[in-house]
């Protein structure tokens, strides 16, 4: 069962490709560290599993979604980058995540820049936001490096109080 139409794109050091079941361990491990549960915690694995299903289905529903960010040199799954726009979201979001052990090497900004370029050049979008938790200093710093500015605060459908960052419009890059 292959999903149609998930393009593979690249940067110097990274490949952005479709998520696959083989990524589950990395994904569940990341989720476990976020929630401070053991990596093999059944509920965390279950949530990660359903999350991966939803990430794949997102591509069918919208025609775009999240890629797995793979490090070219090692083939390791380093994180996720892409677009998120479920019902109830304030617009198409550019999101990025690095899994444990891949921080601090500029992978997130490299992948996010490439994804934003894809959104503006290939998908023809004009505007883009990022939704970031107010205590996520690293992500906020990255958004600001990308030229995004804090537009407003928002409460997500999951009840989280978050910030909406607005990226420079397509014409301004």
């Amino acid at each position: 069962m292959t999903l149609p139409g998930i393009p593979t794109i690249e940067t110097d050091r990274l490949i952005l490709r479709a998520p696959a079941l083989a990524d589950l361990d990395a994904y569940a491990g990341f989720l476990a560290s976020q929630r401070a549960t053991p990596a093999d915690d059944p509920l965390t694995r279950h949530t990660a599993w359903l999350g991966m299903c939803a990430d794949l289905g997102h591509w069918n529903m919208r025609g775009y979604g999240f890629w797995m960010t793979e490090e070219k040199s090692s083939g390791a799954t380093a994180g996720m980058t892409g677009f998120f726009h479920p019902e109830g979201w304030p617009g198409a979001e550019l999101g990025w995540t690095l899994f444990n052990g891949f921080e601090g090497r500029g992978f997130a900004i490299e992948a996010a820049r490439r994804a934003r370029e894809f959104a503006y050049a290939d998908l023809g979008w004009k505007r883009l936001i990022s939704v970031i938790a107010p205590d996520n200093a690293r992500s906020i710093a990255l958004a600001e490096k990308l030229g995004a500015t804090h537009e407003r605060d928002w409460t997500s459908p999951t009840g989280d109080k978050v910030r909406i960052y607005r990226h420079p419009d397509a014409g301004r890059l």
Partner: protein
Amino acid sequence: MPTRNIPVIETLRLVLRGPEPQDYPDFKATFSSYRSRFMGGPLNAYEAWMLYAAEIGHWNIRGFGMWMIHDKATDETYGMAGGWQPAKWPEREIAWIIWPGKGGHGYALEATHAVRRYFYEQRGWDGAVSYIDPKNLDSIRLAERLGAKKDKEAPTIDGNDAVYRHPAPHELDGTQLAHGIEMEISHYADPLFKPKGWAID
């Protein structure tokens, strides 16, 4: 973007196809209603959307999943039936849901019987279970109409569900049980005789 590669199954009155983006409003209507109380609902719009996306992605991860049940003549959707096995499910499940107001016509029976046969005959499954909330009497009745029996020894998802074990393929191969299920389905399709009992779904 079409959900390709998902087989289409036809029955007397129904056609089962993979879940498509345009079917989402029907799914959302049910999962935001009280009808979904035994399936983790009711959900808000965000949760319903994410679950529907996961229903599609399940096909990619597992190679099987839930079909959308359509009326063969009108294409109207009536619910979903198929296989379901997220990470913490002990075994492969055969699952179904019928939209509110579409019960009582035997659609769930007809669709679920067809998907079970597909899994047994085309995919080589040697059995399956259904995890059912003990208060979900309509679904328990449907499981029993499909010949499933409560398996008190089998592991449950979280201790709050009852496990109904479906008959194995050989128990449905030309047996009285299989004939009984097909007779009930055919009576719904051509109601010369009303089926006995109090079928709901």
